[in-house]
């Protein structure tokens, strides 16, 4: 029993497998733009997107990461998405839920720098 307890304490106290840089990015969505529409992060950062809407539901899709979620309507909370910025490059994000006449204009860019 003592051995079990020792293992238990050791496992619970163990640090995460690796230390990662974390960054929170807040984005506001409204017909028909994301603000900001361009987000710069360093490679290796784990980005927590917190996305809220000023009007209706929007979609938050990052095709390169397979992320596609619904942003709640105004006053209904915010969407939280974890995104690992692994390799330098430029990655699109877009509204994936039809939101009005200018829906297809609603796009943004994640710039992952060295």
């Amino acid at each position, binding site marked *: 029993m003592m051995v079990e307890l020792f293992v238990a304490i050791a*496992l619970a106290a163990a640090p*995460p497998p690796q230390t990662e840089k974390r960054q929170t990015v807040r984005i506001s969505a409204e017909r028909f733009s994301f603000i*900001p529409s361009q987000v710069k992060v360093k490679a290796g950062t784990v980005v927590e997107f917190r996305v809220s809407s000023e009007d209706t539901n929007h979609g938050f899709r990052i095709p390169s990461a397979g992320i596609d979620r619904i942003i709640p309507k105004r006053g209904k909370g915010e969407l939280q998405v974890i*995104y690992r910025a692994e390799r330098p490059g430029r990655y699109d994000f877009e509204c994936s839920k039809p939101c009005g006449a200018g829906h297809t204009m609603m796009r943004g860019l994640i710039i992952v720098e060295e």
Partner: protein
Amino acid sequence: MATRKRRFPALWLALAATAVAQTPDPQTPPAAPPSAETRLPFAGYMDFHFNKPRGQPGQLDFHRFVLLFGHSFSDRIKFWSELELEHALVEGREEKGELELEQAYVDFLVKPYLNFRGGMLLAPIGLINERHEPPSFNGVERPFVDTVILPSTWFDGGAGVFGDLGRGFLYKAYVMSSLDATGFDAAEGLRGGRQKGFESSFQNPALTGRLEYHGRPGLALGASFWRGLTGFNLPGINPRVRVVELDGRWRLGRLDFRGQFANVGISKAGELNVALQRDLGVSPNVAERLRGFYWESAARLLPRRCPHELVAFFRYENFDTQNKMPRGFQPLKQFDREAFVIGATYYPEPDVALKFDYTFLRNQSRVVRAVNSLNFGIGWWF
């Protein structure tokens, strides 16, 4: 397993604690919350009105029934469309309603700052023409400036480029079919000149564009222009129309402000009036310059924690479709108008708007009286 659980309770406890402490797989999106809406392959909005002009009987009007369809051929090629039925019934005359294809285009997405678009397009002019879903503006009817100075919904065939320049700047620049000057008139300006993509003449394509700034939360600024020759149906006269527009929206806590200014210039308006009088028997009295502006203040009255929203607003509009007449033509004072619109919008949820307003309409004429109106509406988006 149950036995093993009983034998190693502390180990299970530790594994559970470790699982909580670990970072979840960042690339795996968690399941959608139960409140998330189903995504339909189409969207739409509707607008149902009760209008009661003073001294006249009230009218119920299912003003707009609009369906929007889209399709992604790939991540880089996308289709989008908007089909609108106005006033519920189509019977071959505009007075009986209209069925309009307001948008139907394909986007070719290349770079954030440079993308291509072709098909039936909305002219990128003003606050309302591209952002006209009923819950997105106050008032039962669209602002007068967005009706008789800028003829929303203004759409036609064309092609162009658009993109995001960074630092909050977005742009659009299109070549579109022009307006038809034979449809211009004194009361509604350019409105009757829209070709609406019906075998539109492309003899003198028009240029239009818009620059928007969204760099700061709550603030949106826009500037747009349109210019084109409009006389393809008139022998010997080719009036040039120039439209310049500026607008802004600002959200400050529980307050919302918006404003717009629009100026329209029509060259050779005198010759146009003479030519049209020859055909029609009466001069349409088209002006050389049309001008209008409005500002609106709105306050969200309910506390943030309330699931509903109640917005009270006031809008002042000043618009004159005969702001400057060509030499030899007199302006009619009834077209120099101003409106005071006071009302409220109740949102039982963000996509459903119950609207009320009272519109005090004034003009400078001592003969023709402007008519005030009481308006109720329900508008929704899905």
